[in-house]
């Protein structure tokens, strides 16, 4: 259990997909099927659909806000995003999707680096909202 900072508050749970490098949604994710299409990315070919996306930070183009929001609209996006560093561009995409479609994809920053690094692919992650948001992990 780790205390987190919620950029977009909310509750969600799902299996973790851990990315070893930052991902730009624009040019990096195909919103029609949620697949990672950036060929330079170490997890290229994986899908971000229905999972808790765990990555160090966002990267690159600010159009990533739109592409993340489009995946949420189309149901191909992650159910939550867990970051090691705050990222306004991803927070904005999730925020706008929640305003437009009522689907909340929480975006949280795990402040404690050790906790962040302990998350591995397939761990069941639960994100709790409220005044003291938390990330819980069940390997």
């Amino acid at each position, binding site marked *: 259990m780790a205390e987190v900072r919620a950029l977009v508050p909310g509750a969600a749970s799902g299996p973790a997909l851990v990315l070893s490098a930052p991902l730009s949604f624009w040019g990096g994710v195909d919103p029609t099927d949620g697949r990672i299409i950036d060929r*330079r990315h170490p997890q290229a070919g994986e899908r971000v659909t229905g999972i808790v996306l765990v990555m160090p930070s966002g990267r690159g183009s*600010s*159009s990533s806000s*739109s592409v993340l929001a489009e995946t949420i609209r189309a149901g191909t996006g992650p159910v939550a995003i867990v970051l090691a560093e705050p990222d*306004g561009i991803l927070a904005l995409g999730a925020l706008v999707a929640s305003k437009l479609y009522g689907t909340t994809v929480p975006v949280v920053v795990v402040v404690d680096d050790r906790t962040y690094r302990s998350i591995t692919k397939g761990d069941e992650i639960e994100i709790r909202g409220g005044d003291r948001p938390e990330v819980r992990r069940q390997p």
Partner: protein
Amino acid sequence: MAVRLVDRDRAMLGGAQGEAARLAMEIVVAMAESVGAERLVDIASGHIDGALYHGKVSLDFAERLVAGGGRVRVPTTLNVGSLDLLHPGLYRGDEDTARAGRRLMELYAEMGCRPTWTCAPYQKDARPAFGEHVAWAESNAIVFANSVLGARTDRYGDFIDICAAITGRAPYAGLHLDENRRGEILFRVSGLPGRLLGADVLYPVLGHLVGLESGTLVPVIDGLPAGTSEDRLKALSAAAASSGSVGLFHAVGVTPEAPTLEAALQGAEAVRTIEVTMERIARARDSLSTATEGDLDAVSVGTPHFSVSEFEQLVGQLDGARVADGVAFYVSTGRSVLAEAESRGWIEVCERAGVTIVADTCTYVTPILRSDARVVMTNSGKWAYYAPGNLDVQVVFGSLAECVRSAVEGKVWRDPEVWADG
């Protein structure tokens, strides 16, 4: 942490200025909270990237704002859209996307944004003053406004750009603040040959290198010639914002917040210093190309949009020659520059030479190139960075002169002189 709001912010949040302003203020405040801003700041202008179509969400958001009476409160320019409205025949994509792209462009114009449709508004349409707070989107425009003009914008993008323009407010954080504008990583270029420092082709490569090495640090470049042109600083800005997340750089003796190295560093020490050697710059140059020789299908220049002086240069280099059959040569530019180039007779010269002018959009964000184009040459570090992924083409990076002669000969031509050491 709660953001400190003033009465008119709270009134807007309460819906006093209509539904669109309420939603826009909610988003500005949520962003301010997420970046840890203590308060909001008035902005003098906006530049909007949100009118480029990324899917139905782009339209849903703009429709919601227009339906809620959304109007910009500050002078606002528009970045490229998905279509060239002046030359609609250039578009090779599907009809549905074209219709959605056009509708999105109309919606942003309806909100009172100026239909400038350019990624380089600073060339003619909008020149924020030194020290002025603005909310600009589009990475190259952000770097140019911050670095070359000394205006202050954080790295805004889709959604927040129009929300800031509608509310006239932005989170007072990031590059709006003095302390975040301090130079941190130093690039020394004085070891490069003088001839290379005087060549346009260096600047996108240098920007590419600066972007790759800077991470989240603010770069300072020491050793650029005084009076380095805006075209060169534009190419540097665009490349640095593509390979990295640069939002501001200082060039000692060139950009306004860097009269001296000490001023650029705000009196502190650089966190890291990089000597830009010939070897290092050559490596950065090579990483911009995925092909080096062979038959050429197309050339694309004007990313960011061509300036009047770049048109003048191109016309001089074409020098009456014609682009080879089978090669498409695209120049992307904005309407204001196009009008001036037209009035000088340069567009006619370009078209006679077989050059196609693209306005309002750009060749790497929308289908304009033939889908069977395989090898494309460019003088843009930004285009070279994004096109292989976006368009599935091989890219050859070179100078404008190399692009022109290659287009005329129909195959990649290299000038051995440009990169010669010493």
